[in-house]
């Protein structure tokens, strides 16, 4: 078996809330192979977002390890972790989180600007990506001039801009109607199949869960079980 692209080992996260420790992750062991298209489902407050933030190197575990591409991110300093997020991970948020002052083009270019990609290169790449998500003619539109589904497409283009291997999406269809939601799911599936991107989604929507290859059910800070819809080759 190949080395997993994401691996968590006995992952614990404890928050202090109101002076009392609140154990949110209670030993999560998860392996994700490159090219997987998977989802995590579970009740509200079970710690799904907390887990995804650990995988995305946004937060550090209380104990346990997170390996991305075989690298233990506990061993990286803050700047190295930022670089990892910038190049290896693409975040897609429930509320899109586009920068309202920047047009679609500017939003898609942002991670590349952070990476120090030259102006000409990133302009070209952002155009390509906007074309890929079906918004080639909306490059100069501000987020406020776009529908929710269109904004989420811009956010997907942004997440892809530095060509990361891992895409993390927390409730990305949670704020969209079901038709738009399924269009977005088709787009993700296409990116998974055509470009081999690894997707880890968090969802409340069983319909979304069922479109993935593997569905993990999460409860009270631990993985409760998993269902495979498609056997990996």
């Amino acid at each position, binding site marked *: 078996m190949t080395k997993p692209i994401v691996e968590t080992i006995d992952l614990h996260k404890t928050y202090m809330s109101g002076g009392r420790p609140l154990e949110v992750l209670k030993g999560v062991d998860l392996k994700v192979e490159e090219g997987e298209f998977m989802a995590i489902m579970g009740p509200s407050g079970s710690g799904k977002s907390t887990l995804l933030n650990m995988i995305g190197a946004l*937060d550090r575990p209380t104990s346990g390890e997170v390996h991305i591409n075989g690298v233990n991110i506990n061993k990286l300093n803050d700047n190295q972790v930022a670089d990892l*997020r910038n190049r290896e991970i693409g975040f897609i948020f429930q509320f899109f*989180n586009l920068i309202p002052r920047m047009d679609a083009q500017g939003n898609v270019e942002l991670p590349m600007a952070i990476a120090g990609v030259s102006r000409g290169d990133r302009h070209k790449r952002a155009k390509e990506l906007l074309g890929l998500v079906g918004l080639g003619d909306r490059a100069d539109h501000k987020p406020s001039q776009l529908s929710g589904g269109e904004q989420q497409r811009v956010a997907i283009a942004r997440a892809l801009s530095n060509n990361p291997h891992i895409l993390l999406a927390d409730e990305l269809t949670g704020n969209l109607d079901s038709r738009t939601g399924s269009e977005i799911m088709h787009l993700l599936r296409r990116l998974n199949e055509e470009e081999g991107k690894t997707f880890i989604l968090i969802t409340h929507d069983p319909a979304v869960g069922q479109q993935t290859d593997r569905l993990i059910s999460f409860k009270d800070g631990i993985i409760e079980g998993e269902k495979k819809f498609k056997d990996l080759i």
Partner: protein
Amino acid sequence: MNPVDTLLIAFNGLKGRKFRFALNLVGILIGCAAITGLISITEGLQDSVTGQLNVFGPSNLIIMPGEIGSGMTMTGGSLNWRDLDIVSRVDYVKGVTPIIANKIAEYTINGRYFATDVYGVERAYKELNPNTELEEGRNFVQSDSAVVIVGANIAQPLDLDEPIVELGDRIKIAATVDDVEKELTLRVIGILKETGSSFGANLDDSIAIPLKTAQQLFETGNEFSYFLAQADSIDVVDEAAGGIEEKMGDRATVITAASAQEQVESILGTIQSVLGGIAGISLVVAGVGIINTMTVSVMERTKEIGTMKALGAKSLDVLMMFLTEAMLTGMIGGAIGAGFGYLLAGIIGSFIDLTTSSSIMLGFEVVVFAVATSIASGLYPAYRASNMNPVEALRHE
């Protein structure tokens, strides 16, 4: 992140909050306009005073009756022939001459009415005041009585292309002494070169008549307005002044170019520090405004900062982004402020008839100062932004 991109993003950030940016800009701008204006004006004043003092001559001394109290108020006394004798015997005094000043004469030329300052001086005046040079004609001689030497602007008023007074012309002047109007016809024997205004006397806009003539016309008796003296050399001006003060006691005050300059500079210095303090306070207020606006804007953009960090922005990138916003505010506010300051100085200068000193360097310094103030004000909010935990920032609604 590349500095150009940081700048573009910061600029974009400011564009998105035009109104608050404008408020901050106005804050900085007022402070900078005040500072630029004040410095231009006070430096202009200094230049102009220094210019006047130079005209006065570095080895000259003016002996005024009475004492100069605080605030340059003259108190009592007068000078007479005996005083002149005393001063002339003081060591290092090369020469001294009495002057009758603060008199007005009226006359009419070609139907135009003039009222001008009249000085009563001796032949020695021209020798002791190095700045009186004749364009035409001659100095007074002992036997002169009904003659006059006129200033450059009297011979040819500034608004005319042709002289209205020429050598040999006769001018009938009138003076009111003790409510009685007296008339006197004077023959023009000399026309002075333009000297600019000189400390104690504006020679260009006045006329000079022989001392005896002035004494008779204005009935001044044995009293003179002041004496003009000259020291043997520049090096002994202070010794001469000390000697005169010692002999005259509190009946006279001696002014030299250096002491006058000192006086003026100390007054200007006080003005400058008071006004500079006010301008400084307005910049501090502007700085507090920036701290306030930026703190609010960091709070508002908490989620955006979280997003940026999720996209891979480093703490330093976020810090630089906000500091760049502060820097831009300072730079734009400072530049516009300096521009307004020049304008303000120009307008005020034209009102008080002063050539202000508005150097490019001053504007540059003001901009640097404004940028420094803004960056200092932005430091704390920018640090808070850069130090945010990305997860908490993203949870922020």
